[in-house]
């Protein structure tokens, strides 16, 4: 199941470099996001229009959601959450352009993002509560503590695993289905699948962002 032709990979191979697919396209997404940010902030007006308006809508939308889910203490983590959301959204969407490969269709990209959120959760917990962050793992009743500790550890390890696999499965599955359809009937039949791909791209970016917010908010709040 190999992707037929990848445009940027061909371009990089002209320079006799051997870089993996998802790394090349991660660089491309980074370039794209930097370009969009530059274009949006070039001449900031009081009454926005054009690209500045679009980016203001996106950024204020994410800001509202961060405030709603994480409370006022969560504003510090807005850059992380917004970066994750925008990166995943753009990465998912470029998979729909012929000749481009979504970097989120590779386990490594997703594992990197999920591990970042996982480490952030615990760093935030220790920074906020000090050593009594471990009370989060004890549970409500004291004498159940050993059992609850094991269960909480398993639950915490399941988080980056589920974040990675959910995004990977959705994107890779979509690529596989598109490749199969292109192999069977290349004319017009993949189009409904690509429409679903747009929907899935938005939903998965939103769900990843939401779960990241919920996990970090969970370690910010007091232990039950």
């Amino acid at each position, binding site marked *: 199941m190999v992707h037929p032709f990848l445009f940027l990979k061909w371009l990089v191979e002209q320079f006799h470099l051997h870089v993996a697919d998802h790394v090349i396209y991660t660089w491309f997404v980074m370039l794209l996001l930097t370009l969009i940010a530059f274009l949006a902030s070039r001449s900031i007006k009081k009454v926005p229009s054009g690209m500045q308006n679009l980016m203001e809508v996106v950024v204020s939308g994410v800001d509202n959601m961060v405030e709603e889910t994480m409370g006022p203490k969560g504003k510090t983590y807005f850059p992380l959450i917004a970066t994750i959301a925008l990166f995943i959204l753009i990465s998912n969407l470029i998979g729909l352009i012929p000749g481009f490969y979504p970097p989120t269709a590779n386990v490594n990209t997703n594992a990197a993002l999920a591990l970042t959120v996982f480490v952030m959760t615990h760093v935030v917990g220790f920074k906020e509560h000090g050593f009594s962050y471990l009370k989060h793992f004890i549970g409500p009743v004291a004498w159940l503590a050993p059992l609850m500790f094991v269960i909480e550890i398993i639950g915490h390890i399941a988080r980056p695993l589920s974040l990675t*696999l*959910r995004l990977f*499965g*959705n994107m*890779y*599955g979509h690529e596989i289905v598109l490749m199969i359809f292109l192999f069977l009937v290349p004319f017009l039949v993949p189009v409904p699948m690509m429409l679903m791909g747009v929907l899935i791209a938005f*939903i*998965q970016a*939103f*769900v990843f962002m939401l779960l990241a917010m919920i996990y970090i908010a969970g370690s910010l709040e007091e232990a039950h």
Partner: protein
Amino acid sequence: MEFFAWCVIAAGIGMGLGSFGTGIGQGLAIKSAVEGVARNPGASGKILTTMMIGLAMIESLAIYVFVVAMIILFVNPFTDQVLQLAGAAH
């Protein structure tokens, strides 16, 4: 050589069973969402958002089954060993 036949059967049946539970789960979620919108059409925005999040969560169970099926079919860790044993037997 029946190893490969069993691999394909496992991937196919696994995917079918995984989709079965996911279909029922998502159906129940959408049923409640539609009932909620029918009772209170003004809240349809919030209900839709919550429904989408719930559907994505339930969908991820079928996605895990899909990932396991892909691993069985394409990056099976036992293929080399089996081919070695089959080659040595002949």
